[in-house]
């Protein structure tokens, strides 16, 4: 039994020596599964877009969504600034940048809600057409990921306020950042495929 445990401890130390952090590896594995999740939805959207082009896509407001894209890109920037701050032991800086991230995430969701209401006003609904179904499913699931990220940002912010993170202990911030940046990467792809191409 003790040999078994020693084996695990050795494997853990070997992984650390190679620069592999278990929490980060776990997050990357989760993000890999998320690529497949969004991959299915994006592929379905592309299939409908190529085979059943809809005039409803002309109702999409590219400048508005462009502003939203800019908000999400800026929120990724504030996350890395927060991480840099805590690496220096600047807890106040981390709190400030996490608060900015949460605000930018909330603004993105506000913009998305406005877009959804506007499209519904034009008769584009979740069950009204193939375009509506694939559009709202894809962007809706992305919005849900932003919402989860927003809750996580606030939770990380609360942890930072309680002194959970220091210059030597910031893995929790880093892992949150990986998730948030991934959501940003997904949006970069969605913005191109849904609104530009």
């Amino acid at each position, binding site marked *: 039994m003790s040999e078994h445990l020693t084996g695990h401890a050795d494997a853990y130390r070997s992984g650390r020596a*190679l*620069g*592999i952090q278990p929490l*980060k*590896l776990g997050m*990357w*594995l989760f*993000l*890999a*599964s998320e*690529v*497949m999740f*969004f*991959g299915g939805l*994006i*592929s*379905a959207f*592309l*299939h409908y877009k*190529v*085979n059943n082009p809809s005039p409803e896509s002309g109702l999409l407001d*590219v*400048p508005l969504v*462009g502003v939203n*894209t*800019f908000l999400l*890109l*800026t929120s*990724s*920037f504030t*996350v*890395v*600034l927060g991480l*840099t701050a805590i*690496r*220096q*032991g600047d807890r106040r800086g981390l709190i400030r940048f996490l608060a900015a991230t949460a605000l930018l995430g909330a603004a993105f969701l506000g913009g998305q809600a406005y877009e959804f209401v506007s499209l519904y006003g034009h008769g584009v609904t979740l069950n009204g057409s193939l375009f509506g179904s694939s559009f709202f499913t894809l962007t809706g699931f992305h919005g849900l990921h932003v919402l989860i990220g927003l809750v996580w940002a606030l939770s990380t912010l609360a942890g930072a306020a309680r002194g959970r993170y220091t*210059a030597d202990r910031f893995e929790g911030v880093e892992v949150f*950042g*990986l998730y948030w*940046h*991934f959501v*940003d*990467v997904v949006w*970069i*792809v969605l*913005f*191109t*495929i849904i*609104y*530009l*191409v």
Partner: protein
Amino acid sequence: MATHNVQAHAGPRRLTYAIVFLILAALTAIEIALSLLAVDPGLRTPVFLILSLAKASLVAAFFMHLRQDSRLYTFVFIVPVILFVLFAGLMLIP
């Protein structure tokens, strides 16, 4: 000493992040401007795809630290991405 090293590295790191952010913002502005111009879709679609790939790669390499972290993370992430690109590419066939 350790604190000094961390602080010495934080400045350049912040500058790198700021440059990456400015490039991302500029590429997004180009995309929006291009979408408003009456450019042939056959011409602008590849440009949009290349710009999108460049932006996603910049975020992954710099903000997600794949450039400096263990190659294992890159491998774990890139395999499903390649599968996705292949699969999504097949969807473009009418």
